[in-house]
């Protein structure tokens, strides 16, 4: 480590990283546009100006993102000259910016807006017409480009060069006519396009799916983990006031996903906004599945389990480690081997993040002693038993349509987010989705990722572990009576 003096305090800095990282590591805020810690620094936006004194040389104002850390260097991020240079730079950046913040999706989380408020000047001086360019240029299925808002930081260009290693974007034209473009206007490809909307420091690159959906200051954010593969990327779940999930975004995690996530995971929030939720319970009556009290449904569960000896327990790979522990206790109680349904690889694996394994908690369940079984194996198992308990989000969907073919003689007890109406089902109890409950998943590398309850489950949905505990209690009481 190298020792430098930062705003009057002696601190340690990593000599392999540019000065800007040392400033940030020690809590000194310096604005940046082109700089991003995950991309090659190019030093082109010139906003990260700080004052540096090295040895006998007079104080200089330099860009912190391209300045190496040198032993004994004295750095002042708040020097008047540094502030002045940053203010000038902001004026240039705003010269052609359309200032359409009121209709811009980035407003509220826009670096240009934030830094302009922090250190810009209150008034524009330009009498010139602003640049008129394409306002809604489609870059494929995921991204829309507003060329007028673009400040040409080139983060998006470098993302495809540095991270996916498949360059797709470039700066075309020159000088003030520069625009971000793909070659011959071809659409962007690949599973990582959404990241450039996160990287964009202004509202130039926006997600088609998020455009005009929410003002970002109305979003409630909670740290969570992506459910779409066993990588378990760290994410933020962002929920609008009425509870609808509006956005999944990557959350920095050095050991898992750095700053990135794939589009499959990013746009998986439709799955979290499940329609037709089962709030409470249904049991099979004379006219099919009928709504009932959760307590009555739990009694039915007890009766079914006690009446049949050939039993099975199949869980979904979405159950958390904590739920898995409770399920193990149930398995012991009803004397079955704990099993989870393990769907086939989805064919989306790549060398960046996506593993192709759609089981977010495979590792955690295996560590607890659950055995993985394919959907076919699960169906075969169910076909041989008299009654079975299926537990966890998407469990029925992951086992698949084969459940319809099961004879009504097999009594199924299903704990899932939606009701399953097939002849074999006796009881269904509603569960919370992974954006509504807390817990942990263990990813492919054995790292634990948290689930944050970003919103409340619908009224009537009870906590999974509480339901399992109630079933166990009922079974124990029945044993005592017997």
């Amino acid at each position, binding site marked *: 480590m190298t020792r430098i003096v930062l705003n009057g305090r002696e601190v340690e800095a990593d000599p392999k990283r540019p000065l800007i990282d040392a400033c940030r590591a020690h809590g000194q805020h310096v604005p940046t546009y082109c700089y991003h810690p995950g991309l090659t620094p190019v030093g082109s936006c010139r906003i990260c100006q700080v004052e540096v004194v090295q040895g006998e040389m007079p104080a200089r104002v330099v860009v912190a993102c391209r300045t190496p850390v040198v032993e004994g260097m004295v750095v002042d991020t708040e020097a008047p000259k540094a502030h002045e240079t940053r203010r000038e730079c902001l004026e240039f950046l705003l010269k052609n910016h359309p200032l359409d913040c009121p209709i811009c999706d980035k407003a509220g989380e826009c670096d240009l807006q934030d830094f302009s408020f922090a250190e810009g000047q209150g008034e524009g001086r330009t009498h010139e017409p602003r640049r008129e360019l394409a306002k809604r240029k489609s870059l494929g299925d995921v991204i829309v480009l507003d060329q007028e808002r673009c400040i040409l930081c080139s983060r998006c260009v470098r993302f495809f060069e540095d991270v996916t290693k498949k360059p797709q974007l470039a700066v075309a034209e*020159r000088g*003030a006519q520069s625009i971000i473009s793909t070659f011959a206007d071809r659409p962007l490809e690949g599973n990582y396009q959404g990241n450039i909307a996160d990287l964009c420091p202004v509202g130039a690159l926006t997600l088609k799916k998020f455009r005009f959906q929410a003002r970002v200051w109305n979003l409630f954010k909670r740290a969570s983990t992506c459910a779409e593969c066993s990588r378990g990327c760290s994410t933020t779940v962002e929920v609008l006031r009425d509870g609808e999930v509006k956005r999944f975004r990557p959350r920095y995690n050095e050991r898992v996903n750095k700053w990135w996530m794939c589009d499959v995971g990013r746009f998986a929030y439709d799955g979290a906004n499940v329609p037709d939720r089962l709030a409470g319970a249904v049991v099979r009556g004379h006219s099919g599945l009928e709504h009932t009290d959760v307590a009555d449904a739990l009694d039915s569960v007890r009766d079914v389990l006690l009446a049949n000896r050939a039993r099975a327990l199949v869980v979904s790979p979405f159950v958390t480690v904590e739920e898995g522990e409770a399920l193990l206790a149930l398995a012991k109680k009803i004397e079955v081997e704990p099993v989870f349904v393990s769907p086939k690889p989805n064919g989306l694996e790549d060398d960046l993040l996506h593993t192709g394994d759609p089981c977010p908690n495979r590792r955690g369940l295996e560590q607890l002693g659950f055995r993985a079984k394919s959907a076919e194996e699960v169906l075969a198992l169910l076909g041989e038993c008299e009654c079975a308990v299926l537990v966890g989000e998407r469990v029925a969907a992951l086992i698949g349509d084969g459940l319809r073919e099961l004879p009504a003689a097999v009594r199924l007890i299903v704990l899932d987010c939606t009701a399953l109406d097939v002849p074999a089902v006796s009881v269904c109890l509603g569960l919370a989705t992974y954006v509504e409950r807390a817990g942990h998943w263990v990813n492919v590398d054995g790292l634990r990722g948290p689930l944050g309850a970003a919103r409340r489950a619908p009224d009537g949905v009870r906590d999974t572990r509480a339901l399992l505990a109630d079933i166990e209690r009922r079974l124990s009481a029945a044993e005592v009576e017997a």
Partner: protein
Amino acid sequence: MSGWPTFLLERCKLAGSHRLDVARANGAYDVLAKLLKDGTPPAEVIAVVKESGLRGRGGAGFPTGLKWSFMPDPARDSRPRYLAVNADESEPGTCKDRVLMEQDPHGLLEGALIAAYAMRAEAAYVYVRGEYRTSYDRLQAAIDEARAAGLVGERILGSGFSCEIHMHKGAGAYICGEETGLMESLEGKRGHPRPKPPFPAGSGLWGSPTTVNNVESIFNVPFIVAHGAAWYRTMGSEKSPGNFLCGISGHVERPGVYEAPLGISARELLEDFAGGVWKGRALKAWIPGGSSTGLLPASLIDTPMDHDSLRDAGSMFGTGAMIVLDETACVVRASEILARFYDHESCGQCSQCREGTQWLHQIFARIERGQGMADDIDTIESLARGMAPAKTICALSDAAAIPALAVVRHFRAELEAHIEQGRCPLRSAGAVAAREGVPA
């Protein structure tokens, strides 16, 4: 108008000077041959160039020998090493390198080979401005001739020294004359200048040690090596030794490229070489060294043409290309043209330059159209200060800001008159127009 030794343009005056037979009969490649025959240590070549005080003729005036000495020791650095000859001469007003390349390409090749020998470069790249077709063709023909004569390529003149010379044609971007932009362009990328550090000597072409020199700088080298540093220092001034090629253009009787010692007064160049301001008119302003150096008023025409004197006068030596404006010239119109050039040529990487060059162009154009506003002059000044000095990756931003500041400094009254009258006061006065029958 002489009285000093001249050497740069001597061979150029001969018929067929671009051909190898003519050039060799008149001394070309003699210095290289002697170096190779004597086995002179490369460090000695660098030392003599360093002692000569030769300053780069591409605009910045950086000492050439010192630049060469930044190349890492080949004993400790096994990477290939390159020389790049900057022949992308595109500074407005500058046309000196073109004369050398068209008339004496073998002189340039000899200089490049000596420079490559001194820095132990295995290859030299000549980056020629795309519009310079004759320069390109003549240089390529010269390389072909020289290769056939064993002067370029493997084991030159039977010695152990090998050096390949490659040509590259630019595609019309001014920014590719900036040394790191030139390297990017040579590598086949957009000509976006690279942030420094690393400097080219540490990491240049393809990440290898590289030195980029201007054509005229390289062209001086054989003469310095042949006659010694002391001889070179008999010409020019103490801090800017030697002769330079002055391209004079604009409102003069005899525009052209002339050889003169550094430190000669601008008046001497204008009056003795270029025949004075044309049509018997008075001098209004002059630009000393290409469009990026700030213009100076007529009152400073006695300033010596060297790096330090021009810096003290508030301008720069630049490429030594003098542009002369007579009394009928409108400095606002001139500024608009210059600002348009930089707006067009900014690569667009840095915020200040991308937006600032456009903004300056827009303001000057508006004043010229008669739509100037009261705050325009203040805005020009503060904009230009936000663009320079050294606020961006390369010096193009400075190059755009300097002329704008110079106009405000020396011709504020004329700018104000434009803004107040809403038209060009020179035209509205009609004096010149009436005298010479030019429609107003």
